[in-house]
């Protein structure tokens, strides 16, 4: 099958300094005006490589996920492919009609209604008469924003703008569709609709999909690349890119200074399947989790909270001593908390202990975070993945 997008040895540089950036742009403009090669291939003062040696191809019927952390170069790559910025080295071959949604409401006039904007967009895309009417109707139906479709876009919420932008870009049938973080906004029913639309488009379109959501990449993409500091460090199965993304997320999480309060008041031992789990260790789905707490330095009758955090989505669960109606004995030095099973999607997590006064008003201690990883294959994007008894009746 022929590739619709071919990116070969793509390099792109940026300048960190505004004045220098303007100077270089002026130089590039002058050079291009006289027909000279307008782009310097070497780094100039204050410049850095935002993209280095990027190579991939995408075929019709394929969805390629692009993962990477903020500043990795994902959006820059998409803009180079969409010819919205100039790359410095390499080549981008596009075969077919390209549609992109890089900026959510790019091109919409805020004072015009959604309908008028969509009409102008349709006309600019060369649609007339019945074709134009059909385009407007399809966008209105897909965006599903009701009467707001006839209200000025400036009164839309970000979710509505996202709906309109996605609908206007995806209702057409391009050969290549570029989507940059477009499913980060919008409610769940709309996101499900978007997934369906992308799946439908992907049958006959080459889709490039940038997302920070491992769940979206796992669900939508056939292949994925992972970009780190402008370099393409992985290309292959989406699960591999997701694992890399989560690894880096975990490292980033560890390097951040966590908020702690009197952490020396408690010492914790985290166990999985009764085996001590050192910080950062990988455990498996379904392992039994236990936390042993040295409570000798904690005032009796304190309220305790064990908090489970996902590196990607923050706090996802807590176990509260008040809810469990914990009664403190007269003397005890160790408390074991049975947390249940690690029914968690693969990814990076951490546990911490919060100690409050008996009335729950004062913070006494917030422990260091105990990081751990859950291995396995990612299924959808939700961190907590509980098992249930499924009974046919």
């Amino acid at each position, binding site marked *: 099958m022929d590739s619709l997008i071919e990116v070969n040895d793509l390099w792109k540089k940026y300048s960190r300094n505004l004045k220098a*950036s*303007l100077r270089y*742009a*002026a130089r*590039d*403009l002058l050079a*291009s*005006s006289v027909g000279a090669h*307008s782009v310097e291939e070497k780094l100039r003062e204050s410049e850095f490589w935002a993209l280095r040696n990027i190579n991939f191809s995408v075929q019709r019927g394929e969805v390629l996920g692009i993962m990477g952390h903020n500043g990795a170069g994902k959006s820059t790559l998409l*803009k180079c492919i*969409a*010819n*919205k*910025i*100039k790359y410095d080295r390499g080549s981008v071959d596009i075969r077919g009609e*390209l*549609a*992109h949604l*890089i*900026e959510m*409401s*790019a*091109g*919409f*006039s805020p*004072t*015009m209604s959604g309908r*008028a904007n969509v009409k*102008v*967009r349709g*006309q*600019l*895309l*060369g649609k*007339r008469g019945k074709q134009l009417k059909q385009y407007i109707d399809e966008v209105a139906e897909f965006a599903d924003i009701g009467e707001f479709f006839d209200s000025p876009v400036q009164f839309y919420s970000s979710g509505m703008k996202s709906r309109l932008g996605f609908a206007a870009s995806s209702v057409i049938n391009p050969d290549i569709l570029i989507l940059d973080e477009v499913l980060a906004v919008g409610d769940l029913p709309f996101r499900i609709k978007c997934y369906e639309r992308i799946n439908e488009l992907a049958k006959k379109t080459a889709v490039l999909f940038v997302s920070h959501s491992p769940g979206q990449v796992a669900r939508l993409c056939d292949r994925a690349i992972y970009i780190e500091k402008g370099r393409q460090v992985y290309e292959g199965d989406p699960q591999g890119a997701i694992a890399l993304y989560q690894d880096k997320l975990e490292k980033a999480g560890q390097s951040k200074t966590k908020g702690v309060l009197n952490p020396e008041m408690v010492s914790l031992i985290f166990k999985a399947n009764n085996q001590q789990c050192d910080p950062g260790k990988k455990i498996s789905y379904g392992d039994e989790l236990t936390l042993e707490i040295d409570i000798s330095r904690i005032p009796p009758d304190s309220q305790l909270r064990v908090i489970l955090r996902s590196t990607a989505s923050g706090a996802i669960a807590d176990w509260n001593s008040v809810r469990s109606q914990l009664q403190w004995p007269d003397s005890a030095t160790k408390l074991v908390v049975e947390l249940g099973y690690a029914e968690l999607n693969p990814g990076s997590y951490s546990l911490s202990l919060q100690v409050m006064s008996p009335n729950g008003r004062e913070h006494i201690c917030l422990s260091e975070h105990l990081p751990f990883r859950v291995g396995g294959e990612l299924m959808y994007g939700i961190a907590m993945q509980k098992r249930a008894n499924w009974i046919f009746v």
Partner: protein
Amino acid sequence: MNTKFANSIIAGLTLAGRNVRLQIQEHLLGYSWNIIIPVLYAICFIFVKQAILGRDQSDPEHWWSVLRAFSGITLFQFWFQLLRDISEFIRSNRGVLRGLNIGISPFILSLIFEGMFLLCIRFITILVAIPLVGISYPDNLISWLYIVLALLSMIVSAVAIGLLLAPWSVLYGDVRRALQSMALPIILISPIFYPAVTQSELVMYWVNMFNPIASPLAVINASFQGTPQIYLTAVVAWICVSIVIVAWSSFNIRKQIPILLERMGS
């Protein structure tokens, strides 16, 4: 090629229609400003002229000078507005330039179409003003042809200068400032508040030859008054030079858009 050109024309008309709608939606008086401002200028001109020179209103030359000032300001503002809009078209359309792959031609064409629409409004206003000041219309076809040629020269020179400035206007805010500061000097050196010099040995004659707005205004005034055309060559020269500049700039800007979109940031 023809289909592509036709699509650009249609896209240009679409964008022009959008701009006209926005202009009407976002301004209470919409396009009336194109008439109000020159009328105010003409009133001021009559008042100041009478106060300074104390001219007799029955003097026919007085009304010719009023018409020259009124039509001069009306057309100068059209020319300057078109030049400014074209010089800022990349910045003002960056959303659509980023969002859609339709090239730059529709944006330039849309401004030209919108400009022509504005020019029609302004020229009709001038035509309405002529009998109101007691002057009759030119009765020979050639004068009208010269007027059309002069108006064409104004459009293409505004587009040409605007396109030359457009990339630099994205990079440097100075371009906008410089344009604003040039407005009054251009009015003062153009044959708006005084007639164009007719002696070719005078310095002002050559200033008018190189001033893109002076020669069309002089030709229009001469056509209305039925006096000899001194600046027709300059008008034709400006049309030819401007067409070359437009073609060259359009070719260049097409290549420069990615550089400029990058510098404008997100």
